[in-house]
């Protein structure tokens, strides 16, 4: 901005960056109020006079409310709260990164059993663009699931034999078979599910919830992410914090990621020789300096920083209590299995998710990677199912018996579907499946969705949707709705637009799955 090459920088009257040198942009006559407010909320590194009073006023207000500063958003103490009474207070999102095939999980296609190694009819494919991985294949031979399906429970969901535990909780599940997306590669597809947009930089779902609803427990983060150890590693998806960042929302809405080994949160323990009192005094000192900085500069991110120091300090006592599993009764281990004792496993993370839910954490996202079975699908999907099935079912069962499932939404699924034809060589025992964005399956449980429902249908090849398509935008709109939020109204003004999780294209709440 201030490089000498910038011709405007030399003219003090055109530059808004230093109040006192000339008129500031936000003092321009006729500037609409809304724009002025946006400017104030977003302004970073812009110096101006009079901000000190506002900063002091805000700190005073925070203490008046008796809430730690961290509970306030950087833009002010306003937490919107739900637009209408919510059905869900919290959500646990079991993200199966890499995308489990719908054919071996939830979308039973008996017709394909009779079509082994036949070519996928061109009429079904309809000129669909394929990924570079299969586009050059001479043939598209149909690969029926090697795993058998059976109907379970009152609901009669067809469940693959890979998931015997999940099959037992089928009556709790609302299985969606008609998800679709435009993304055909993992990173954009995962981003679209976690942030509503294929391009990085948007706030994630958990951040929107934190922004819209605030914290239920000020001692713990509102949004927690855990990644899980993998039983095997093939085509592992890269995970990075852009999947759980707060984008243009204040940084305090980003997830805290709990580590899978060692201390769950890094640098939380005081270093040797530093007592709690010393640490407290240090944080008070740093915060006082930061507050001075905020008074002078008015940068909203300074407040986010203060909030993060405060949160870290409070987590010094809340996280060890959270991670101490010694009080769990034997029934817990019977349910989740012995693997849940090993930090970092998917089973451990599922148990932690229940403990986080009990303590009022709003949004917990668990990632389990390595579902990307382009080849050796029968062997590898079995490893993944064995790693996760019992713990997934345990989590839903545990939430239910403890009265938490009623207002906790559980989501299970990957980022897109897979092809009905084999990628690479098809044999009676082995095959692979490429990416397929036109349809895929997920399930939801609890939190105000209809249990025991199967929603949406695909054709005999699970290639095209034939009934009740659900775009990711619709899924997001529905999730927000369950939290009492209208996706059209949950917005944040940025770059001149009222930005929303669901973006600008039409999105609809899936009424048919609401309990």
């Amino acid at each position, binding site marked *: 901005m201030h490089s000498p090459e910038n011709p405007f920088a030399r003219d003090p009257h055109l530059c808004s960056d230093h109040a006192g040198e000339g008129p500031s942009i936000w003092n321009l006559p006729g500037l609409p109020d809304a724009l002025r407010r946006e400017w104030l909320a977003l302004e970073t590194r812009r110096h101006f006079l009079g901000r000190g009073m506002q900063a002091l006023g805000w700190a005073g207000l925070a203490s008046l409310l008796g809430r730690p500063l961290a509970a306030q958003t950087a833009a002010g103490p306003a937490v919107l*709260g*739900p637009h209408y009474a919510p059905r869900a207070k919290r959500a646990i999102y079991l993200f199966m990164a890499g995308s489990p095939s719908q054919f071996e999980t939830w979308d039973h296609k008996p017709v394909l059993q009779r079509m082994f190694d036949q070519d996928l009819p061109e009429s079904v494919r309809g000129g669909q663009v394929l990924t570079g991985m299969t586009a050059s294949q001479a043939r598209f031979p149909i690969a029926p699931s090697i795993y058998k399906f059976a109907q379970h429970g009152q609901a009669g969901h067809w469940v693959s034999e890979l998931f015997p535990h999940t099959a037992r909780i089928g009556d709790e599940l609302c299985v969606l078979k008609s998800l679709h997306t435009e993304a055909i590669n993992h990173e954009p597809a995962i981003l679209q599910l976690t942030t509503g947009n294929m391009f990085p930089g948007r706030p994630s779902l958990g951040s929107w919830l934190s922004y819209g609803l605030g914290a239920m427990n000020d001692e713990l983060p509102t949004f927690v992410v855990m990644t899980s150890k993998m039983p095997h590693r093939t085509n592992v998806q890269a995970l990075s914090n852009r999947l759980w960042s707060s984008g243009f929302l204040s940084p305090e809405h980003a997830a805290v990621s709990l580590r899978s080994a060692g201390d769950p949160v890094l640098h939380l323990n005081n270093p040797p020789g530093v007592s709690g009192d010393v640490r407290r005094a240090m944080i008070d000192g740093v915060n006082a300096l930061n507050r001075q900085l905020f008074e002078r500069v008015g940068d909203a991110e300074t407040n986010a920083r203060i909030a993060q120091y405060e949160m870290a300090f409070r987590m010094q006592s809340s996280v060890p209590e959270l991670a101490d599993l010694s009080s769990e009764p034997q029934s817990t281990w019977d349910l989740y299995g012995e693997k849940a004792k090993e930090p970092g496993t998917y089973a451990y993370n599922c148990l932690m998710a229940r403990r986080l839910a009990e303590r009022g954490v709003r949004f917990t996202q668990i990632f389990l990677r390595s579902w990307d079975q382009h080849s050796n699908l029968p062997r590898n999907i079995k490893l993944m199912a064995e790693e996760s099935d019992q713990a997934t079912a345990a989590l839903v069962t545990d939430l239910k018996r403890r009265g938490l499932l009623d207002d906790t939404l559980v989501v299970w699924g990957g980022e897109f579907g897979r092809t009905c034809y084999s990628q690479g060589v098809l044999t009676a025992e082995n095959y692979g499946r490429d990416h397929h964005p036109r349809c895929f399956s997920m399930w939801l449980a609890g939190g105000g969705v209809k249990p025991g429902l199967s929603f949406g249908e695909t054709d005999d090849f699970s290639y095209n949707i034939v009934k009740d398509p659900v775009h990711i935008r619709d899924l997001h709109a529905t999730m927000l709705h369950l939290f009492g939020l209208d996706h059209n109204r949950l917005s944040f003004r940025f770059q001149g637009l009222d930005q929303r999780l669901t973006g600008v294209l039409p999105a609809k709440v899936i009424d048919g799955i609401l309990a």
Partner: protein
Amino acid sequence: MASSPDLPRFRRRLALGILLAALPLGAETTFYQDRIGPILDRHCVVCHGPEKQKAGLRLDSFAWVMKGAESGAMVLPGNAAGSELYRRITLPAGDDEVMPTDGKPLLSREEIRNVELWILGGASATKGVAEFPGAPALGRPKPAPVALAPDWRPRADEIRRLETELGIRLVPRSQQAGDGLILRTAGSPRRGDDATLARLAPIAELIVEAELARTPVTDAGLAALGRWTNLRSLDLSRTRVTGQGVAALASLPHLEALNLTDSAVDAAGIQRARAFPALRRLWAFGAPGMVATEARP
């Protein structure tokens, strides 16, 4: 806000009432009355009704609909494709001419289909619902919001003071004032004790949900809770409350959900809770009463 949304409906009913009076006997609910009127009320009447008449068009009664706009008829019986009203509701979102305007939610597929069938069937005021067998059902109309508790807003200062003094949170359940407050102790469970509950008595009628899991609350505290008449949901999991204490909640007229997981409630207490007048959901996993029940063959 309070009465205006009902006004058009009332007028429509009135108009229909007059219309129906002239109908042959035995005409039960007409398709227009059952489907088309409610769709227009819901999506159009704010701009095309008694208050505003955009483009000179009113859609708050059958007669107005058929009268059309300044520019002429909007519905051509039997000809959906040629009807301006139908064209406007079937344009893509974002189109300059799509109805409703202003980015309001568009009609659902089912709603559009009902309008289409109605026009194709002659845009009749009198045909019954049974004469449109192909018309998809519309989503249940949202029940009118019922106030669960008095408006808390006039008492915001008092609420804020109690939060500060007691170290608990009193959170609106939603932006609708009638949805009441949640007593929240997740961040400070130790503060949710009997003394705190006693101090909350003056605003107890505002509290609809009490989250007291992991708090030191005892049976004495439950005696106080027994007078929180608007309570619908109570979480006492991981507390020391017993079956005796639970008896004090028997008179709560609206208590629908009670969580006694890992509490000290015995089998008799669970029996008692099951008989509460409004109770629909009860959990007692890990409570002695439940363990005993489970252990019985």
